[in-house]
């Protein structure tokens, strides 16, 4: 059976997932954003401006680097790293925030807000706010502020206000709640710069389209390097923006297999992990229908991951859809294996990855044996590890 890969539809639905489940106060703003984005996409001036900032400010294109020593250590795979860690601010998040900041300016919104887990999206938002002269407030769980203290300093240095969130689990989920509450209150003057492919339509589609530059470049680069398409794309999935950005331009290349890697934390027991696609059920969180981690009464469960950027009980609706139709497979990797992945890449290639993409490397450590030898693998190296050295030091 052919299943549609042209998603979302006009209502923002990815099959049974996606949509807009927000308070009425926000509905008009979502319509406005959808229209502004549609108009910008058609506007050569917008595309030129976006391309310019991505190239000259953020540092695109990023290299596709063949990690030969890593590949040998993994038993003979041909592993390529898509080096989003080399971007300005140190992660893929800036691809999206530049796009959204340009839109905010076009919509006449002079204030941006954001949620952040690991702090990478917060830093990327604070960065573009400084670049375009916008006021910026970033909501961050208190627990995350402690474990990613370096990024808090960076955001403040960039002129943003960091608002500690002490409700609930004090992590990304609660930061999202507070950002949405702020947006409900200040929606007329404020653009909500959401950092992942989650939230109400048009965010999952719009953030994907801004991040798809990763996969478009990688596709061109691998064709040049190998003369053929890759066998596997592997990327970590929290909300799933770097993974969808890498996957999406290959979506109709059905021979290219997608593997998303979630956080198994301390093991797949309730409250101990963030493996939403593995253990979640259908629900609505933060404005979108997707898979979520919930109890039998529909209350959202706590999550746990060593990687703050994966510590989220939901996942982008497009990933839920890809899993349902079998276009992508998802696996879960524990904290311990992610730390091994981090060490392996550091030792073999001299690259210290963030703990989030370290999960994708962890996946290869565990499963490389089962992949055909000499398989061509592109691994989304979504961010660099500087922000995590404190956490790593405590565990090693």
């Amino acid at each position, binding site marked *: 059976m052919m299943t549609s890969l042209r998603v979302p539809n006009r*209502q923002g639905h990815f099959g049974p997932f996606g*949509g*807009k*489940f*927000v*308070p*009425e*106060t*926000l*509905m*008009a*703003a979502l319509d406005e954003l959808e229209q502004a984005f549609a108009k910008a996409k058609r506007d050569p001036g917008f595309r030129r401006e976006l391309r310019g900032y991505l190239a000259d400010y953020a540092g695109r294109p990023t290299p596709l680097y063949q990690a030969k020593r890593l590949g040998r250590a993994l038993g003979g795979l041909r592993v390529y790293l898509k080096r989003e860690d080399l971007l300005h601010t140190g992660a893929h998040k800036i691809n999206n925030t530049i796009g959204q900041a340009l839109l905010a300016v076009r919509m006449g919104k002079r204030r941006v807000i954001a949620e952040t887990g690991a702090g990478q999206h917060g830093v990327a938002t604070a960065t573009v706010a400084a670049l375009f002269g916008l006021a910026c407030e970033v909501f961050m769980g208190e627990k995350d502020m402690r474990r990613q203290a370096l990024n808090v300093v960076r955001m403040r240095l960039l002129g943003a206000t960091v608002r500690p969130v002490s*409700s*609930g689990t004090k992590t990304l*989920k*609660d930061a999202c*709640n507070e950002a*949405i*509450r702020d947006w*409900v*209150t*200040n*929606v*007329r003057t404020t653009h909500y710069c959401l950092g992942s492919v989650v939230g109400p339509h048009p965010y999952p589609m719009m953030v994907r389209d801004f991040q798809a530059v990763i996969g478009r470049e990688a596709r061109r680069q691998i064709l040049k390097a190998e003369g053929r398409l890759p066998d596997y794309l592997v990327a970590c999935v929290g909300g799933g923006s770097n993974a969808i950005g890498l996957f999406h331009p290959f979506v109709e290349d059905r021979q290219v297999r997608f593997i998303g890697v979630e956080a198994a934390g301390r093991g797949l027991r309730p409250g101990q992990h963030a493996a939403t696609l593995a253990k979640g*059920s*259908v*629900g*609505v*969180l*933060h*404005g979108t229908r997707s898979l*979520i981690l*919930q109890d*039998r*009464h*529909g*209350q*959202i469960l706590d999550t746990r991951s060593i990687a703050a950027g994966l510590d989220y009980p939901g996942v982008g609706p497009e990933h839920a859809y890809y899993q349902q139709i079998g276009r992508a497979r998802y696996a879960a990797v524990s904290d311990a294996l992610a730390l091994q992945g981090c060490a392996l890449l550091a030792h073999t290639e001299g690259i210290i990855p963030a703990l989030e993409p370290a999960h994708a490397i962890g996946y290869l450590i565990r499963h490389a044996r089962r992949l055909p030898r000499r398989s061509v693998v592109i691994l989304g190296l979504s961010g660099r590890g500087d922000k995590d050295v404190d956490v790593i030091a405590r565990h090693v």
Partner: protein
Amino acid sequence: MSLRATFERLRRTHRKALIPFIMGGDPRPTVTASLLLALAEAGADVLEVGIPFSDPLADGPTIQRASQRALHAGTTPAAVLDIVGAVARRTAVPIVVLSYWNPILRYGAGRFVRAACQSGAGGIIVPDLPPEEAGPFRHAAGLAGIATIFLAAPTSPPPRLRSIARAAEGFIYYVSVTGTTGARDRLPGEWLQGVRQLKRLTTKPVCVGFGISTPSQAASVARVADGVIVGSALIRELEGAAPRAAVKRASAFVRRLRKAV
């Protein structure tokens, strides 16, 4: 009495609806029924009771705390519907249930509306289910004989107000402020224009909530709208009180509002 009959009676007698809101199970499920009955006795025209949710993103700190206390006490959607059933057997005042969408989805939307109807609820408010996504739910609620109450906001442009007015059943819940729930000392004037606009579009009752905390605010809203919804201010009044004192305070608070509306 049904919601419709209640609003017809109010219209005939030129009175406005007073609609207090409390969170089901706050601070414990055992207290909620007697609180609701006290509110009815003190003069409420409609009772609104919430199902607690872990991530109530339209709510300010007061209702967030109430949800947390209720969840902490083990309150489930089924427990709130049981409470509604117990109250509906002892008062003719109609009851509407407020729940975020996820607990209803998890319960099963069809099963939920049937259970709500059996318990005697007359309407359901889902703050994160706009008309665009509500089609199947409205249909199921309609079959079960329950009104789906939609919200309208100061940011809703005229075409949305029209479609909300068309879709609305029972009454239209007009959100008075661009923001989350929570008592405010002063209401910005934006609600006035919005309510007048809605009243020109529809003959359905328009009730105003969010931010209303004092009898004088309630009085000024009631001059224009068909009803006044008071939640956070009432919950704040009860916070920390022992059950018997809470019942007393709740009824005194609603009596004061009743005099003003």
